[in-house]
């Protein structure tokens, strides 16, 4: 199926083959960015950010500009315009008159789906509440693929807040579509993976284990996906203080890991990866951010039907 004109609202909107197509194009862009510097000339990307997310917005805007396209949009929530669902419909209808593709971020779940119903141009969901963030999943997958070659026989550790981390849930669900991925879920009791994700792993027949200790899990991992354990998630501050160091990756813990480990993080990082890890070749998270731009370049091209 062609990707031209489609929306990307949820991480699994595209088939494995369609995602492979995007990754393949992203790899070509990485190899030869110059070849793509003008392909979107005359095209306009609209960034509709109802809540600020500078990192995500920059990544989309940089992607479009590097393809030779132009960018319009807003990045500050105008509370009067945000209030009702109807205004999303009207905003997207209007924007569709001017732009060729729209990227939307909104604090309420399901907003991107509403927008897509009223839009003649492709809508990309750049995060809606605690719900979905599909281009982060694309970024994560591309990064693993680039560095590991394939997903098969990979042991992926996911560490930290597995209960609410939407990027973690989406990544697991996306990886379940590939054979031979083993999951190690590392989190405090209070922030374990939700039951429905666990059920999904069982249904897919995936090999997974849930453990409490990062250090114990490290030696077996090929990929480590880190997220932050937030203080506010705990009713008792004492529990947080007792636990927090367990889920911080530092040089000492990293000495137990494989030489080939890759460390991912959706960023922004606070203190869950100590800065002494940054210079380690296994620290992949800044390369991952760069891949985020490339995969968005590939996505924009595919949705616009260029190539």
């Amino acid at each position, binding site marked *: 199926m062609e990707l031209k004109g489609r929306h990307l609202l949820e991480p699994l909107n595209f088939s494995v083959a369609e995602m492979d197509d995007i990754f393949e194009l992203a790899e070509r862009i990485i190899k030869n960015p110059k070849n793509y510097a003008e392909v979107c000339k005359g095209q306009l990307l609209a960034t509709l950010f109802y809540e600020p997310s500078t990192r995500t917005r920059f990544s989309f805007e940089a992607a479009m500009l590097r393809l030779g396209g132009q960018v319009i949009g807003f990045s500050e929530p105008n509370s009067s315009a945000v209030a009702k*669902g109807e205004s999303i419909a009207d905003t997207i209808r209007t924007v569709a008159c001017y732009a060729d593709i729209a990227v939307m971020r909104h*604090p*309420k*779940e*399901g*907003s991107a789906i*509403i927008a897509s119903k009223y839009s003649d141009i492709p809508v990309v969901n750049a995060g809606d*509440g*605690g719900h979905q963030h599909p281009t982060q999943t694309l970024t994560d997958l591309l990064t693993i693929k680039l560095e590991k070659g394939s997903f098969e026989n990979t042991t992926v550790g996911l560490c930290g807040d597995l*209960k*609410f981390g939407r990027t973690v849930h989406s990544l697991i669900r996306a990886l379940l579509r590939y054979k031979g991925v083993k999951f190690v879920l590392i989190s405090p009791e*209070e*922030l374990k993976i*939700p*039951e*429905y994700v666990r059920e999904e792993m069982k249904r897919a027949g995936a090999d997974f284990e849930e453990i409490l200790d990062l250090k114990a899990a490290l030696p077996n991992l090929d990929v480590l996906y880190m997220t932050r354990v937030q203080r*506010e*998630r*705990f*009713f008792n501050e004492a529990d947080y203080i007792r636990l927090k160091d367990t889920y911080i990756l530092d040089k000492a813990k990293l000495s137990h890991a494989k030489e080939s480990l890759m460390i991912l993080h959706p960023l922004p990082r606070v203190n869950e990866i100590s800065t002494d890890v940054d210079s380690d070749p296994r620290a992949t998270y800044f390369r991952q951010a760069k891949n985020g731009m490339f995969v968005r370049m590939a996505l924009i091209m595919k949705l616009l039907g260029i190539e």
Partner: protein
Amino acid sequence: MNIIIKNGRVIDPQNGIDEIRDIYVKDGFFANLDDLNGSKELSFFDAGGMIITPGLVDLHVHFRDPGLTHKEDIETGSKAAARGGYTTVCPMPNTIPVVDNKETVELVRSKETEFVELAVVGALSKGENGQELADYSGMMEAKGGICALSDDGKTLMDYSLMLEASKRAKNYDLFITDHAENHDTNIGGVINEGEVSRKLGLVGIKNSVESDIVERDVKIAKETGCHMHIQHISAKESVELIRKAKCDGLPITAEVTPHHIALTEEAVLIHGSNAKMNPPLRTENDRQAIIEALKDGTIEYIATDHAPHSEEEKAQKIEKAPFGIVGLETAFAVCYTTLVKTGYISLAELVNLMSVNPAKLLNINTSISIGNVANFAIFNIQDKYVINSQEFVSKGKNTPFNGMEIYGKTMLTVNRGNITYKAGAFLM
């Protein structure tokens, strides 16, 4: 139909009115006398000696529909509301299926009657199972939407999930209305833990079962700024926590039921399972703390927690009988008699607690002003009457107030300009 009400004492705190006035209703709205010129159908009532209040608003009812309609359905519940002087009520989501998605919100809404308006409350978690958050955006999108979120008696116990729910609720400008019960420490409690539970050999429910969760919810209000509303407060410790949180400027509020205002655990000795509800009736100390909190504004709402059950269900041994009592058809009279007649608070303050404040929370305007939608009730506060539960239009007759001599009988209720209840003795 157009309506003229003569000689009633209008209590309308929003307009600062407490005086004898005539009221005119034309085509659903409060009007002037001149507007009624030429009306064909005109109802006339003499409300001499009676009071007229804005329509009452109940933040907490269980209409059991869909799924448990042997206890109540939306039509009988709505008629009971009208008979109590109510014009808006908030049905809770613990039906079968649970109101946790767009379709079920719309199903409930589709059953709304002319008798009372429904401000639907949606579930916090899917199926009220405490595992996964419900579809808030879907419920908001439903026709008519929802006004608040609650997991009812299940209480969403998981702290971090509750925190996440409150963040999302705040995004949607929804408040959370929380049944404060620590399910980790309440193991099979039947009534208040105290003298009566010891006398009857029943498992008790400690005050801390409630106040633990109030404390948690205060913390959540502080963390996220989400408006946390505590349902049917019963324990003096909870009152104190809320008073302090409000002093600290946190978005926290509380409601109390007529039965926690009027009764103590002693009522269980007389009324058995018809005095069994959750939270349970507490001690006189707790009751006095609640009255004090009503006086100083710590508690801003009176809500019934109208919880109908069939007579068979309530006829079981008290350990087995379900929690809950009906309240819609007795609330005003019980509160008037207990709070106003005794001099604890004024009539205007009672109207604030039962109409003005809950209406504000739901963003509706109940003031008796020309041009406003005509929602009001008339009560007889001069003559005593005896509560007879067999006269209830609710399917539930489960009340500890049966046989009580009381003041404040509902004489007439008007919702959107339509007469939704009229006492038999009230002559036109």
